[in-house]
């Protein structure tokens, strides 16, 4: 099992790409292992965000998943973080789908989609680490430049 605690965001992204590129028979043979790994990679992505904010990532769970607890922690005080809420939930959904029936004929495709969802999470967090305001304007309806502009315009 990959130890995400020692991985950078770039390492995680590379590992996601490697999973997505695996042959169907490999993905089918290691379905549950890969589903768990993608979930852990997702947690690692959120841990990176929390570490950048000098927060200790929680070990708690929400609805049985640490990923969702980490998301809730990351969104505290940062409503724009909700821009990745559904992405996290989709990852949990695919994890459950694969774990529920790892021999399903669609398992390889489901794992690839789970990898793409995880990649989106990595891209969003990567973007947010570059520009903290990513998602501020749209997802939280918060102004980006009010402090720069000073007093109200009117």
């Amino acid at each position, binding site marked *: 099992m990959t130890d995400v605690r020692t991985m950078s965001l770039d390492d995680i992204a590379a590992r996601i790409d490697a999973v997505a590129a695996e042959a169907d028979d490999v993905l089918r043979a290691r379905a549950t292992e890969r589903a768990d790994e993608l979930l852990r990679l997702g947690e690692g992505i959120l841990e990176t965000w929390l570490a950048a904010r000098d927060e200790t990532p929680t070990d708690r769970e929400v609805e049985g998943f640490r990923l969702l607890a980490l998301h809730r922690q990351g969104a505290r005080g940062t409503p724009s973080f*909700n821009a990745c809420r559904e992405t996290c939930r989709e990852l949990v959904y695919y994890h459950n789908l694969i774990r529920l029936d790892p021999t399903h004929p669609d398992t390889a495709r489901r794992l690839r989609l789970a990898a*793409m*969802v995880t990649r989106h999470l990595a*891209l969003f967090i990567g973007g947010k680490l*570059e520009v903290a305001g990513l998602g501020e304007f*749209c997802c939280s309806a918060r102004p980006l430049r*009010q402090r720069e502009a000073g007093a109200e315009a009117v």
Partner: protein
Amino acid sequence: MSGKYKKVAYYPGCALEGTGHAYNRSTKAVGKALGLELTELKNWNCCGAMEVKNVDPKLQTYLSARNLSIAQDMGFETVMAPCNGCYHNLKKAEYDLEHDAASREVNARIAGKTGHTTYEAGKVETIHALDWIKEAIGEDGLKARVKNSLKGLKVANYYGCMYTRPRHIFPEKDQAPGSESTSKPHFMDDLLAAAGAENVDYPLKTACCGGAHTLSDSDTSTKLVLNLLTTAEACGADVIATECPTCHTGLEMHQVRAEKVFGRKTSVKILYFTQLLGMALGLSPRKVGVHENMSDSSDLIRAKGLG
């Protein structure tokens, strides 16, 4: 179908007069084909979109509220805004005016200075183009009017972010069964399925496209969009259906940029849901502005017998 929203005020917003003109054209054409009456707001103004909201959100609330007051003065109870940004801002203004005394004070002060009606929360309902067709016509009504089924067309429905977030400004969502969902929206899926399309299970339907940062941090936006496009392709989609001019333009622009900058070519097409519905209703691709899109969907449209 309740018959509600047969006659509504229409707020196209700035984008639909520019990069999103195909959405404007196709929304009007679909409304006409369905016998729905749209009356454009007289002398409407910008909703305050990014520029004003970034600097002074209360001024943005006023600007959006002015549009609502125009609808009220024109005798309408409902205003339909097809652009997610406009829809979101009008809903946000409604919420702020209901819950924030300072917003009410700023709105009343500027409205008084400029000499028009001060909009008060609760007078006019803001809806999206999806609510409009879903409620006024419904899936059964749409099915009955389809002349050119979208059968065989695999669609990934992309709603973007501002249609559902933040949740608190959309109190009508996540209510009784059948209402729109903020976590897994389905109105566009429902309408396109009624027109014969096969919706794929697209896991990124509300995921971030980096839209607001498309110029300031283009690489992030391009990477996010590229993942949206490749995921749609992995889901087997022929086309991504959009319901927002910002999402639509972002997907089109970054599809081109992803190929130029990262050498990653994707072939999934991008069309407004109103363009797909219009063609299903028998309108020509030109009538719904397919020629105004940046991406060329003509091969797909011909192959599916839609034009």
